[in-house]
């Protein structure tokens, strides 16, 4: 079984700071990390491989630093890694999906393609579905379990008000939720070995695809958080309750 997993390097959103004067998000100084849910996608790919045999190929698109997420994937246990180097600068989810679909088609065939349900930075949930639609293969989103049998997958799909059990024939693209598994932590030796493993790099500009984005980011502005930040502490419980209650009455959210 050939399995592909599409991963992304994102800024560590929890560490993102907003400039208090200009409200500019300070993105360039924010540490990068693998988009969390993509680790679940890698884990699921490895689990399927362990049960059914085959190889796992990890693909990412990004700048030079994006290789780090491929090293992490290799340390977790993936067999091959392909880096589509973004040598063009600003692109959008359309170009990203076109590029990844192109690699999947030329390096495949892959029976199962896995993605995280969405990336932790932008949350558009777009690339996985775009890839599937580009490749004209079935797409199952928001998987919280995957079972492979013969040439079919059965997936539990987590929607707002219901769980759907969905069957599809391979090849198939599946986007996974954080609830699907607990990603393994790579061993130190595996991390050291991964650092030496060759990573294939392809320049985005050299792919024979449409490189014209469909959308353009005009501006990103930080949001002012307007919480009062009043801390009630070091008080006996009775007093703390009174203090909170008085404040909530003043706010008008509890009526006297």
């Amino acid at each position, binding site marked *: 079984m050939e399995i592909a997993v599409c991963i992304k390097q994102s800024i560590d*959103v*929890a560490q993102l700071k907003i400039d208090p004067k200009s409200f500019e998000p300070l993105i360039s100084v924010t540490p990068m990390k693998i988009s969390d849910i993509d680790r679940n996608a890698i884990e699921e790919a490895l689990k399927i491989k362990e049960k059914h045999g085959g190889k796992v190929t990890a693909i990412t698109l990004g700048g030079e630093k994006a290789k780090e997420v491929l090293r992490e994937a290799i340390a977790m246990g993936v067999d091959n890694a392909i880096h589509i180097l973004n040598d063009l600068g600003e692109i959008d989810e359309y170009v990203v999906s076109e590029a990844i679909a192109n690699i999947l088609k030329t390096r495949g065939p892959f029976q199962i393609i896995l993605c995280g349900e969405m990336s932790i930075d932008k949350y558009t949930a777009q690339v996985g*579905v775009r890839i599937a639609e580009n490749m004209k293969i*079935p*797409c199952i989103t928001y998987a919280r379990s995957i079972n492979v049998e013969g040439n079919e997958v059965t997936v539990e799909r987590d929607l707002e008000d*219901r769980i759907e059990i969905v069957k599809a024939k391979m090849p198939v693209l599946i986007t996974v939720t954080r609830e699907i598994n607990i990603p393994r932590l790579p061993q130190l030796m595996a991390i050291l070995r991964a650092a030496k493993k060759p990573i294939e790099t392809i320049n985005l500009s050299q792919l024979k695809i449409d490189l014209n984005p469909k*959308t353009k980011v005009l501006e*990103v502005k930080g949001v002012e958080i307007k919480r009062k930040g009043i801390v009630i502490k070091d008080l006996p419980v009775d007093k703390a309750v009174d203090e909170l209650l008085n404040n909530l009455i003043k706010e008008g959210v509890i009526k006297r």
Partner: protein
Amino acid sequence: MKIVTFSENLEALMEIAAKVRESIPMESSISSITTMKPNMREEMGRYGINKLYVIEGLRNIEELIDAIMGISEREEAKLIILESNKVNKEIAIKIAVNIGAGYIADCIDFKIDVDGKLIGKRMVYASKAVETIKVLSEKAIMTVPRRISEPKPEWNFTCEIIYEKVKPIETKTLVIDVKKKELSAVPLESAEVIVAVGRGVKKKEDCKIMEELAKILGGVISCSRPVAADLKWFNEWIGLSGHKVSPKLYIAVGISGAIQHLAGIQNAKVVVAINKDSEAPIIKSADYGVVADLYEFIPKFIERLKSMGK
């Protein structure tokens, strides 16, 4: 501008129509598509909708996508707007691929630029920032959240109702079973008061007193992601990957305040946090952060509220 909108829910279609009418001042025609039989057809014109297509005989997502694309083509729509939910986002992206359109997910505000192209705003980086995006393609598609605007009955269109049979298409993803989730009796998005529990609550039984607190305050109980996803005490949670809520009063009990959780409560009016760890991020991110043992604080809080006649 010719616009097509889609939601299963008529109320959502009226909200979207109101938002379109206030955001796109030029003369526009709105053709809405739904899957439910309308019981208020005369009303739809008053809410700014020119045509209502009711899709019949629907069996799968492929047929729905085909129907929305067919109607959009016939109506010569330049802009397609869908109510944002998990399934509709997938539909929107598939349509975007098929018609070569740029897509804006979870768009909270939008306008048409001088060149006739769509500009939209959306929250990014766990709601720490707002991104302004311009769609460069001729056609644009977006999903918008519920309650993007109040429905406004201030128009006098005669809404034409058109029943549309779908073209049968074999599905590539067969749904073989559906299990309904047991959800909060009041939708979390419309709750006025929410008491949410986190990992600081030790046992599932302990949620009972939080539920009592919620009841006294006229609200509902919910939780943070780990309590639902890992402990499985609830079927839904509050946060970026769950519900984004806007109650008047939000009480976080034993929740540490991961950034994804904070993103879900950004629109709450007053946020109270009760946590014994004064270093927990939620203490600083609340209006009132109470550093106390919840097992001592909550029973006393309930007692005082009861003594006030609540």
